[in-house]
């Protein structure tokens, strides 16, 4: 069962993904989402605003360092913990 943060992040990704695609879970590879790499970066910027965190990476690194949806969740969770 996905926690609230995972559910929220998947919902944000879904809004950008091709409709009618496969179900998105924490294990879904980012390359399988059919989302343009810049768009994924924009999703990360949205998360920064929503959670009041700062993700230190430029747009290239954002794509290069994250492999699946769970990686995004983990990165955001760690930054939220650091802030608290």
């Amino acid at each position, binding site marked *: 069962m996905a926690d609230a943060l995972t559910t929220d992040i998947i919902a944000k990704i879904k809004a950008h*993904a091709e409709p009618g695609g496969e179900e998105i879970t924490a294990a879904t590879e980012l390359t399988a989402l059919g989302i343009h790499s810049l768009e994924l970066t924009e999703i990360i910027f949205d998360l920064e605003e929503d959670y009041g965190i700062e993700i230190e990476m430029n*747009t290239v690194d954002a794509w290069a360092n994250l492999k699946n949806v769970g990686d995004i969740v983990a990165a955001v969770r760690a930054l939220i913990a650091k802030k608290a």
Partner: protein
Amino acid sequence: MRNRVVITGLGGICGLGTNASAIWDGLRSGRSAIGEVTTHDLHNLKVKVGCEVKEMPDHGIPHRQTVSMDRFSLLAVIAAREAMRQSGLVEGDADSYRMGAVVGVGICGWEAIEENYRALLLEGKNRAGIFTVPKVMPGAPAGQVSMDLGLRGPTFGVTSACSSANHAIASAVDQIRLGRADVMLAGGTDAPLSWGVLKAWEALRVLAPDTCRPFSADRQGLVLGEGAGMAVLESFDHAKARGAEILGEIAGVGFSADASDIVAPTVEGPENAMRACLADAGLNPEDVDYLNAHGTGTKANDMIETKAVKRVFGSYVKDLSVSSTKSMHAHCLGASGALEMIACVNAIREGIVPPTANYREPDPECDLDITPNTPRERQVKVALSNAFAFGGTNAVLAFKGV
């Protein structure tokens, strides 16, 4: 002997239809697609008249591709795909490094500008959309067409306001003539039906309140439209060698600048561009059967264009069929010359001169045979297509049958 450049595919999308044959059906029957703009949010604008693509066709371009495209790029890619399909060329058939794209753009990707300044200035968002830069840039449609069709040869955008498409097509012709490419996708695109663009045009007081009536004494100005037109241009030898159906030939191109005023046209500029085009094509004025006029429907343009045409064609002008198809597809800025290419190529193929729609009253200062309201059947061996622009940047193309 220079390379001959032929047309082996046409594609188009505008208010008249979402493919080139639907557009030609509208043009040859004299149907104007100008009307109230209902699918774009124009906010507090006074002028609500335009020529819009009411519904996008089912283009099948995946989301990860469309997300990076402004509307003018999407229109260009839809038209380019159609032209490519008609040409019979498929990716891998020819050397992709010998295939390129030149796309004329009069403005830029204004949809993204509009969305962003509204979000930032009115809605208080604190960052711009991440695709804003690649969406807005005037070179985007050419890049998107090359990505979509896998073209790895000469690829760039061309801009000269209302004559952009003719300059783009001529520039693509040059790539083939110079031996840099065998196949070029060429045309133009623009999507100007947004608040910011129309607000600026409104300030110029050149927009017609009802419709576009080129050469009619009661004309009140131009109407803006959106669209794209694209052609597959190919060296004659390349097209022949693969047994392609040849739709027409680009016989010549002619350029000039007014070097006078940023908005007011001269007679000499357009005159010299037409003369240069005829010279490049090795044609005499009497060889031309049909002239697709720039014909914007403004008082000044139509009167000055009439004078320039009479200077070039002399006593033969009485035998020259003229029309402004902007009366039907409106002025689509960077796409205009490309849509008018669809008119010229088909006029030659079918022997039908598309009319000037919405015409009501003769104007002694516009006394050309402008084919009022009703199409005319006549043999068209050669068609000329005029494009003039703010900035005084003139470009004329000559088409002929093969």
